[in-house]
């Protein structure tokens, strides 16, 4: 399944199954993802895209099979190591998952505070990331006062602020108009070019064909296609 170069895969899945109350959500998934890959996970609603992402950051555990993230086998990960595993990821959700009672600054700072960074560093880093996503002036705003596109940019800023190895995006443009979606996608593309591994679950064909990457297709929990895509 490995494509292209001989780089060490940062993510490996071997014969992974996920059942919910005996109903199969994923079935016999084997997959390797290399560092700095841009992987699109596609498929219809209910195909298993979100479940696949959840297995990676241990939002769910596999019913069977092995998931290995950056050399750590999630089958044997001790509970106290789960937060450290999650710091390898920056996660972007369709519904943003920002804390509505905290300001934009506080939402972003939380990631760095949780990782134990000093206040001065936190302030500096938050401002620099907000500058990248073009929302520096919104640092004192509460998320509900922002537009959907702005909230998703904040969510992206939160995902990248801890310099994660992997960015997971679950339908990040699903709730956005085409203009906002384009901005989001451009940002992801930029972080990819800066060296991040991006895994993006989407069913938007427009996005998929705008980048050099790789696309897998899920159908009813099974991996039915895995191939490279060329920039349109």
């Amino acid at each position: 399944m490995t494509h292209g170069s001989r780089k060490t895969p940062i993510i490996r899945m071997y014969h992974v199954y996920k059942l919910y109350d005996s109903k199969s959500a994923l079935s016999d998934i084997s997959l390797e993802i290399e560092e700095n890959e841009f992987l699109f996970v596609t498929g219809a609603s209910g195909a298993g895209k979100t479940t696949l992402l959840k297995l990676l950051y241990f939002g769910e555990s596999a019913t069977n099979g092995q998931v290995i993230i950056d050399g750590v086998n999630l089958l044997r990960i001790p509970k106290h190591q789960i937060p450290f595993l999650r710091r390898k990821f920056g996660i972007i959700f369709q519904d943003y998952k920002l804390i509505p009672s905290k300001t934009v600054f506080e939402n972003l700072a939380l990631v760095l505070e949780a990782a134990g960074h000093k206040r001065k560093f936190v302030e500096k880093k938050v401002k620099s990331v907000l500058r990248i996503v073009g929302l520096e002036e919104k640092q004192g705003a509460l998320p509900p006062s922002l537009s959907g596109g702005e909230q998703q940019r904040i969510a992206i800023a939160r995902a990248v602020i801890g310099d994660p190895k992997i960015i997971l995006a679950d339908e990040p443009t699903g709730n956005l108009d085409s203009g906002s979606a384009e901005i989001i996608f451009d940002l992801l593309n930029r972080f990819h070019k800066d060296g991040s591994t991006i895994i993006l679950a989407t069913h938007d064909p427009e996005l998929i064909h705008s980048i050099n990457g790789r696309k897998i297709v899920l159908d009813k929990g099974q991996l039915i296609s895995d191939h490279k895509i060329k920039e349109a």
Partner: protein
Amino acid sequence: MIRHFEKAVADIAANTFLNSITVITIAFSILIVSAFGLLMLNMSDFLNIWKSGIRVMVYLKENCNEQNRLKLEKAIRSVPGVSDLKWISKTEGLSRLKEQMKNQPSFLADLKDNPLPDAFEISLDPSHQHPDPISRIAAIVQKMERVDEVEYGQAWLGRFAGIIGLLQMAGYAFGGLFFMAGVFIVANTIRLVLYSKRDEIEIMRLIGATDGFISAPFFIQGSIQGAAGGLLGTGLLYLVFSFISLKVKGYEIVGPVSIRFFSPEILFGIIGSGVLAGLMGCYFSLRQFLKY
């Protein structure tokens, strides 16, 4: 740590009503238990003062001559626990009685003869100033020749020690009960806060926050609730104590009655137990909530 403390204070400020109820309930629990403790402390003090003044009176039979008296004195002195012995002749006994009853002179005015017996007054070692050793010494002396009666306020002593023992047990039971109530109340408050923040906590976990990072503000919040409850409870107790100590001033029982409040060490312990209840309450709520 400062961040966690700020967050805890912000959470308390955001849920003032809930936190106030918690603090007041803890305060009342601590007030009741501490009141028991204070009562026991002062009763023990009183018992100790009383015990230190305990004298065992040995009344002699009639016709005890000088030689027999000296023999008896020697025998009593040899009993373990006896520290001193004083001879009180019937004449001295009567003059003592007259002195004690100087306000009611009519009681003794018509006495033709001295009805009192000769007596010894036994003082005891501090280690023997407890109900059991005293009754043991009294029993030994009672069996001696020429001894008519031994008296030491046995009924009083036993009853008083019994009451203190009972209060002590009740104090422990109440203490345990109210401590558990404190833990339960804090646990419920924290559970409500956790429930209202479940989305926030879920997001924190997704961004890689450890359970320690998530829990710290709640533990601080629980500690603040416990400490505030402890301070309020002991503060209220001090008010009640001040009022009572003003009332009992001037009373005399064995000597002048003086009551005391807890020492700073004990107060620290009481407030510490409030903090411990707060921490335990948090622990139980968080343990349930933060399961992976």
